[in-house]
């Protein structure tokens, strides 16, 4: 397979040099090249146009969300749709903080997301080191158990988890969510995937230099795995921030609610306040948008390397 590809490459190079020798041939090939370039430019323009239309179409829900958040309630569902509000109701963005405890919800979401992300990244990268760079009996069987549970749908064991948390007296507390989400198999898996690409010789050299295993982890592996750490941190943060079912099952009192629960209940209680609901939606998306724009490279990397959801 590779041989064939290499042969073809060599052939193409050969053909290229051969053509350029005679002046007539050169002229012809130049003309050919310029038409090809022109053709390529036209294709580029067409592609840009197609992509632009596509992206706008896909962004319509967001555009509509933002536009509606700046309207009066009775202006949101008008016929025909007004994409740009006749009058910008900026007060929606100041009123919402007094209508629902938005600040509290944001703080709760942030608290959960930060703690879970830190724990996940720390324990995940430690365990991944154990699974990839230390050889000991039973290691691979243990790792198989980790992988195996990734395949089990969470819904299939959420009931036993719930019973357990109830018996521990942890329902209606952040601790339940932290314990359930901070030690997931996903982080271990993602980090191990990355550590496998770091050559063992590097650890070997550090060992000979007298570094302990913990030293190797902290001073050799961690600095090398910054992209993977960033991927895991971002994916975990976003997953926790956006999680609905976890908080829905475990957090019953309003003062513990996350942004997602708060928004959902706001929709339930004030279902005619369309503009305000859209304002809340925009506010719930903004933190994610910022984080995403800062680290989108790592999201894409994390997904491409692990191919997994959190």
């Amino acid at each position, binding site marked *: 397979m590779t041989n064939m*590809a290499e042969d*073809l490459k060599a052939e*193409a190079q050969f053909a290229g040099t051969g053509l350029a020798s005679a002046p007539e041939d050169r002229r012809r090939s130049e003309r050919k090249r310029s038409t090809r370039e022109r053709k390529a430019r036209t294709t580029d323009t067409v*592609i840009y146009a197609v*992509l632009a239309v*596509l*992206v706008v179409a*896909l962004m319509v*829900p*967001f555009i*509509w*969300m933002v536009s509606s958040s700046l309207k009066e309630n009775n202006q949101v*569902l008008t016929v*025909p749709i007004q994409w740009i509000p006749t009058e910008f109701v900026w007060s929606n963005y100041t009123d919402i903080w007094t209508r629902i405890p938005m600040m509290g919800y944001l703080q709760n979401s942030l608290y959960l997301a930060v703690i879970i992300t830190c724990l996940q990244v720390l*324990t995940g990268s*430690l*365990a991944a080191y*154990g699974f990839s760079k*230390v*050889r000991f*009996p*039973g*290691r691979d069987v243990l790792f198989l158990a*980790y992988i195996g*549970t990734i*395949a089990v*749908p*969470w*819904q*299939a*064991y*959420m*009931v*036993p*988890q719930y*019973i*357990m948390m109830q018996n521990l007296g942890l329902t209606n507390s952040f601790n339940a969510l932290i*314990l359930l989400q901070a*030690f*997931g*198999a996903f982080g271990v898996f993602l980090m191990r995937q990355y550590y496998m690409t770091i050559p063992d010789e590097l650890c070997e050299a550090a060992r000979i230099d*007298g570094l*302990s295993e913990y030293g190797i*982890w902290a001073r050799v592996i961690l600095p090398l795995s910054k992209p993977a750490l960033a991927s895991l941190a971002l994916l975990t943060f976003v997953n926790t921030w*956006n999680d*609905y*079912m976890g908080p829905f*099952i475990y957090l019953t009192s309003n003062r513990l609610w996350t942004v*997602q629960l708060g*928004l*959902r209940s706001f*929709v339930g209680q004030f279902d005619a306040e*369309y503009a305000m609901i*859209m304002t809340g*939606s925009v506010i*719930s*998306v903004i933190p994610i948008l910022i984080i995403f724009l800062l680290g*989108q490279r790592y999201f894409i990397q994390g*997904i491409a390397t692990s*191919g997994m959801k959190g």
Partner: protein
Amino acid sequence: MTTETITQAPVPVHSRGNRKQARRNTLIGWTFILPNFLGFLAFTLIPVLAAFALSFMEWASFTAPKWVGLANFQRMLASDTFWVALRNTMAYALGHVPLTMALALLLAMLLNRKLKGIGFFRVAIFFPYITSLVAVAVVWNMLFSPDSGPINQFLHSIGIAEAPGWTSSSDWAMPAVIITSVWRDMGYYMVLYLAGLQAIPSELYEAAEVDGASAWQRFWNVTIPSLRPTTFFVVVMLTVSSFKVFDLIVVMTNGGPGRSTTVLSQLIYQEGIGEGKFGYSSAISLVLFLIVLTVTVVQFKIQQRRER
């Protein structure tokens, strides 16, 4: 301290040293794994095993668990709601998997070129995937609003007089959920396909071009076969995630109208945490798990046969 430095020196190759080294490695390995493993064991591994055991027990909130064999499964098979939920879950998967896959591949093909600013388009298409699910559900519910929602306005404007009732109609609620989820997920699978496309050596296309293959022939004879491992992975992931669909349903339709969008994982939640029928809901869990497992194994076998 001294013993520490001695053991860290290169290990001489005789058995006692090796055994000592192995014991030391086991200890070190476990200290690395332990912080994660304790949490994993307590809150994932044990609950997974418990779900399996519970499905053979009768256990409601305030009674002692009692072994009942297959009684939960018999009850489940006789339950109308279970079959409705199973059918709805399959309907969702049948809509969601092929649509998401096709659109993800199409987008990846469009985005797999070196153009200025292509990164912007990739990022924009990926963004819905990480947007808060509640916001997505809320916005789409309003877009789908039957009377004056933007979607039905659009349908009216292109001459469709009888626009669907979407989430308020038991026939159209599931398509509405599917459309929303396809919109949300395709950027994610687009990334996977993009990675697959970029791994195809360009020589293959050049060779096909030399042989005079048309764009369609190149797509069919080079792209599709080269993407087979990615497609396999995408199909497994998509199918598995379809069978697990939960949040989107709960927030968008909560299983309604009637039972038209009730899915398996929602039933597990309602019966288990909602009504405290732990044994019965665990039986449904086991079915969900078996479906997911079967899908994975069958697709794995198909993939293997193709490769041979």
